[in-house]
């Protein structure tokens, strides 16, 4: 398997507090890779660091490599131009921009762009094209539009932060179908989640705990480990096991 993203012993401290404590991770081209872990494990921080969000342009130590390019220090748009994007857990809202315009912006370098089809894959009909990407959309609708924009952009690597949160998907099959569509169109997916049933949709999964990746492998096994160990974890939930 050919690696598309390599996270090489990445450490990150914010205000002198260590958040990532030596993350090692390889994402293979064409896979759906879930990162599972409890709240505070560092999953979203890692996602933001890969995309270069806010002040997270470089780790304190280590390297993030996309194909052969070291991402450390690059701006968000430079990373996007390399073929990386991120869908936020809570997407932004835009006054005065229609769904159609938003999808066309996202897909402006995609010669096969079909905005109606993008909407269809996330369960929205074409009437949404004329809606504004603002507060008039519900949280779930906005989230679907965000995922449609990833389909429109057709990046090489999409980082999806909690893609299922806030969406009233009828079934797990809906999410699986959408992710599979992205994958079939050549997008590698790095999916952040804290739900093991979502992680099971992936080809491989990694478990993050306390700023480190502690296991990578079969999603079912990683999911089981998460379910059996993280919920009663002494580090995160000391009260459950009588710790201090």
């Amino acid at each position, binding site marked *: 398997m050919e690696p598309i993203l390599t996270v090489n012993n990445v450490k990150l401290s914010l205000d002198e507090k260590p958040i990532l404590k030596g993350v090692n991770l390889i994402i293979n081209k064409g896979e759906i890779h879930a990162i599972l872990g409890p709240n505070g494990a560092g999953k979203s921080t890692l996602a933001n660091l890969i*995309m270069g*969000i*806010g002040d997270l342009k470089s780790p304190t130590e280590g390297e993030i490599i996309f194909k052969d390019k070291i991402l450390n220090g690059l*701006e*968000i*748009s430079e*990373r*996007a*131009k390399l073929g990386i*994007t*991120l869908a*936020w857990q809570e*997407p*932004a*809202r*835009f*006054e*005065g*921009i229609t769904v159609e315009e938003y999808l066309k*912006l*996202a897909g*402006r*370098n995609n010669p096969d762009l079909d905005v109606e089809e993008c909407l269809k894959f996330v369960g929205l009909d074409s009437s949404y094209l004329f809606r504004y990407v603002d507060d008039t959309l519900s949280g779930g609708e906005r989230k679907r539009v965000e995922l449609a*924009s990833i389909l429109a*952009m057709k990046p090489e690597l999409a980082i999806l932060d909690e893609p299922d949160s806030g969406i009233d998907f009828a079934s797990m099959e809906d999410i699986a179908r959408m992710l599979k569509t992205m994958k079939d169109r050549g997008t590698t997916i790095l999916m952040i989640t804290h739900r093991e049933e979502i992680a099971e949709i992936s080809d491989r999964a990694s478990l993050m705990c306390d700023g480190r990746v502690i296991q990578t492998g079969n999603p079912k096994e990683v999911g089981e480990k998460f379910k059996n160990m993280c919920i009663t974890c002494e580090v995160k939930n000391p009260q459950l096991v009588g710790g201090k």
Partner: protein
Amino acid sequence: MAIAKNLLNIAKKEFTKIGLPEELFTKNKFNLLVDRNKIVTKYPAPGVRSEVIETPTGVKTKVYIEPGTKLEEPVTLCFGAAGRTDLQTTESEIIVGEGADVKFQVYGAMAEGIKLKHTAKTKIVVEKNAKFVFIDVHYNGENTLVDLETETDAYVGENAYFKSVFKQIKGRAGKVRVNLKARVDRKGVVVFETKMIGKKDDEIKVEDIIYLDGEESRGISKSRIIAVDQAKAEFIGETYGNAPRCRGHIDCSEIIRGKDVVVKAVPVVVVRDETAKVTHEAAIGSIDKKQLETLMARGLTEDEAVDVIVQGMLR
């Protein structure tokens, strides 16, 4: 006739150069087109009676919309300056008859490179059960210097609706003072929207005043002002809840971009009835970081992303 045609050609050339849609001219859309103090075109709209007089510095207009008139197409007007002049003044009086439902699309167009003072005074009466939408969009050149002073004084009758939108879309804003005032009668509704961008040393001052005098009247005052470079911008929104169960809201959002920008927002809320309710929200700040990062994560540069966000806000 030949002179009017020549004036029309000049207006077309100069105004399309600063961004006015060409089809306004090719499809003969203007019900009234004024260049400085000359009437260039004037076509009647059904149910709309009007009288336009040229003055030494501009025009005086009286418009009466007959009761019950309902127009699907907007009445399209343009007050502009296609060439040099020091002063342009327009005075308008518009009466929208009972039960009428019309929209006015007004263009202000000041040709590239000219410098002038423009004053506009408009009196509007929207009679009982009528609906009137007044969209006033301004186009200036990037090197145009306009000192614009506009005053609108409206009365919104019982169960009537009046929406006024003031937008400055292209080019320099210059020195702008927009003053919008409305008195709203029982169950009447007024909506004021101002959307502007100030660049370089532009100065923008917007003042919206709404008197909710009638029982269950409603008023919304919304402004979106973007100030960049060394621009100065000030928004004052005053809403007076004077009657039982009236409702008002002031929503101003100002974006600053540039370290020498000065921006001020002053919402004033006065309530004189215990069942009235007037609320306000005011935000001044830089471009929303999450919006910016989202668009950059889709491959837009920071400048492109800012442009998309700003154009969206000004729409």
